[in-house]
């Protein structure tokens, strides 16, 4: 048993932490989230230069062959920003999906470009807001003499505004789910930001988009199982990001309880206020250690699927509840869109939904452990 980070991981952590402090100060971060301008090309370029985009990929494809835990350590620190941009959606999830499913030609053509940031590939998965599984894929792929026509509407595409291309789940006329690479500038592609209590999310419509046969991922087209394999590798990295964000919420909230004076004393001396911070601490640690154990399972080769779903449920719930309890402490000031708490609230709600809610992941965890025959 060893529950400590290695020296190398501590170094990665420090580099990421310094990056966040320098590049994502609170006043800039709050503005980006408030104005929904969460794709900041300059910021993304710097992350590319640090080797963080595609870092889990093998070196032959431009990655750094980082372990899941190493990657998780970096993303936890990025979550403290929280650093916006397609570092996860393109650099981890799409990269892993292409790595799992692509032909070697496709991997050679696509993955180095993702790592260099020249290509930002954004997954576009579900046609229904309430589901993220294969049953939610209704976008149609119809065969034509020279390829396919694709039509459908993806209801929640995270980081869509950053996309140079989409990795789109679609259903063939035979009913198979396949993954298609589509240039974001293709005729028939429309990106509409979703307005409301969410961020970095858009609806992407595909209206009879022409698709060459070569755009199908994998020989003969990949299926859902390969994407599931990519999710298994990627979700814990998103969890680590949520852990870092929850830690930041905890830290700024506890600091506020030391400095905010009401009724002649710091509010942190009131037990009712302390109780809110105690709840945040529990959610934070539940999420952190579920995530770390899952990353360890992935790196060790121990079966991790159920743990991945558990970690996603716990980390999403953790970040969501951390912001709720923090609002109990911050009260009015925390609801000002100029305050960092608002960025966290909107992001926590968005990530609660992204790639499946806690309830959905708990179902998947149970289906993995106790299948009903």
């Amino acid at each position, binding site marked *: *048993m060893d*529950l400590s980070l290695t020296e190398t991981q501590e170094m990665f952590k420090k580099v990421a932490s310094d990056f966040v402090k320098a590049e994502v100060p609170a006043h800039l971060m709050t503005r980006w989230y408030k104005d929904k301008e969460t794709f900041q090309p300059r910021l993304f370029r710097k992350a590319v230069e640090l080797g963080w985009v595609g870092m889990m990929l093998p070196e032959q494809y431009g990655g750094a062959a980082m372990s899941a835990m190493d990657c998780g350590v970096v993303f936890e620190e990025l979550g403290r920003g929280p650093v916006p941009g397609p570092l996860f959606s393109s650099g981890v999830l799409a990269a892993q999906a292409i790595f799992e499913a692509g032909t070697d030609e496709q991997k050679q053509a696509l993955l180095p470009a993702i790592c260099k940031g020249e290509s930002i590939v954004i997954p576009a998965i579900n046609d229904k807001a309430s589901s993220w599984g294969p049953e939610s894929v209704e976008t149609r792929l119809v065969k034509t003499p020279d390829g396919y026509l694709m039509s459908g509407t993806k209801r929640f595409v995270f980081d869509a505004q950053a996309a140079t291309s989409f990795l789109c789940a679609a259903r063939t006329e035979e009913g198979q789910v396949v993954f298609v690479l589509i240039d974001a500038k293709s005729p028939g592609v429309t990106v509409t930001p979703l307005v409301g209590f969410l961020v970095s999310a858009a609806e992407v419509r595909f209206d009879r988009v022409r698709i060459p046969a070569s755009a199908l991922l994998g020989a003969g087209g990949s299926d859902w199982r390969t994407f599931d394999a990519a999710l298994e590798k990627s979700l814990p990295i998103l969890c680590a990001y949520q852990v870092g964000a929850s830690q930041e919420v905890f830290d700024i909230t506890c600091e506020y*309880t030391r400095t905010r004076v009401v009724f002649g004393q710091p509010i942190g*001396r009131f037990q009712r206020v*302390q*109780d809110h911070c105690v709840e945040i601490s529990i959610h934070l640690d539940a999420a952190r250690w579920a995530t770390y154990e899952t990353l360890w399972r992935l790196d060790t080769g121990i079966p991790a699927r159920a743990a991945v779903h558990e970690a996603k*449920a*716990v980390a999403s719930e953790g970040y969501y509840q951390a912001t709720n309890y923090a609002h109990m402490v911050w009260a009015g000031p925390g609801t000002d869109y100029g305050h960092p708490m608002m960025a966290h609230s909107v992001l926590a709600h968005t990530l609660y939904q992204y790639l499946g809610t806690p309830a959905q992941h*708990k179902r998947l965890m*149970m289906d993995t452990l106790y299948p009903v025959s």
Partner: protein
Amino acid sequence: MDFSVSADPPHVVEFRKEVRAWLEENMRGAEHLRWSASWSTRENEEEYRFRRGLAEKLGKKGWLFPMFPKEYGGAGLTMDHQIVLETELFRYGLNLSHVFYTLARIVAPVLIRWGTEEQKREFLPPITRGEVCVWQVLTEPQGGSDIANCQTKAIRDGDVYVVNGQKVMVGHHVPPDFLWTLVCTDPGGKRHENLSWLHIPANLPGITIQPMHLMMGIKNAVFFDNVRVPAKYLIGGENNGWKVANTHMELEHGGDGRIAMDPLVERVVEYCRNTHVGGRPLIADPRVRDTIADMMIELNTLRRFNQRIYWHRFTKRPHPYGGPQQRYYQRMMRLRNAERLQQIMGADALVQDLSVHEVVDFEYAVRTGPGQLHGGGTLDTDRLIFARRLGLGRPVQEKAPETH
């Protein structure tokens, strides 16, 4: 990072074989026994005698306190050896600190920390060898969680202390050999500077023990009537008891951690596979599955909190809020699980099942919901300590006292 507790490092591979073989030999004859919990509504003399005998056999090998020095009855082993013992005993439904009904897991480390060399050599080996049963004797009728408000007096008279007072919520259904007792040795003295600890032989004249029948089982009231306790049983110095109490309370407040996984979920799943409603097993009901998922995730969270505490303790790195966090979380989780079990199983969750070990009985799990919100303080004292250790409302986080 390495979360494994069952993949052995090379230096303990042979030890696991040794322990496994030893337990196969020494657990023979226990197949029909069902273990009662450390706080129990069951009383089974045969079970008690078996467990006490097992503790003594483990103690002879130094395995009850494997990491303790040999001169104090331990075996001088490492954390990895302790993990082997814990996990092997768990296969039989037992854990090391509760092999038999003693709170030695608290008293022994306190003695290590605060006893004189002479006291350690005299008092520790009987404890670490499992030869004596020790109760901790703190709570008073008027004090509750406020243990500093101690009214049991121990007045020095020559070479003895004369003890008068009453304690409640003490021990369990098994008689004690020693009473590890918090007393007031300076009735007129300043709060926190008037307390002491006496390791009192339970057979001294003037001690009366009366059972109390509570939701979770048997506890006792202990009355001291002019009990004359030789001064050699004073541990940690006269009027220095609050400092000693800090070590004691840290251990009682979850500061020692553990690594066993609660088998509740597996039991619930088995029940749901075997119980059919309308021709379908309960395990196929989506609402049942969702409820089991919540139960499982919370039990996993508690396991990780405990594992983290355990690791911090044995690597001697500070984790000051771990104990109160774990205890508060466990209490709230048990309350939620009490409701979940009833939602899944209906009234079956409320019926005692004597064919299984008590700690895995569903009925027991339901009672622990409301029944164990207290014990070594309340869930609110857990949160108070937790908050201090997080540094809330104060410039500096409170440090946890040393426990080893």
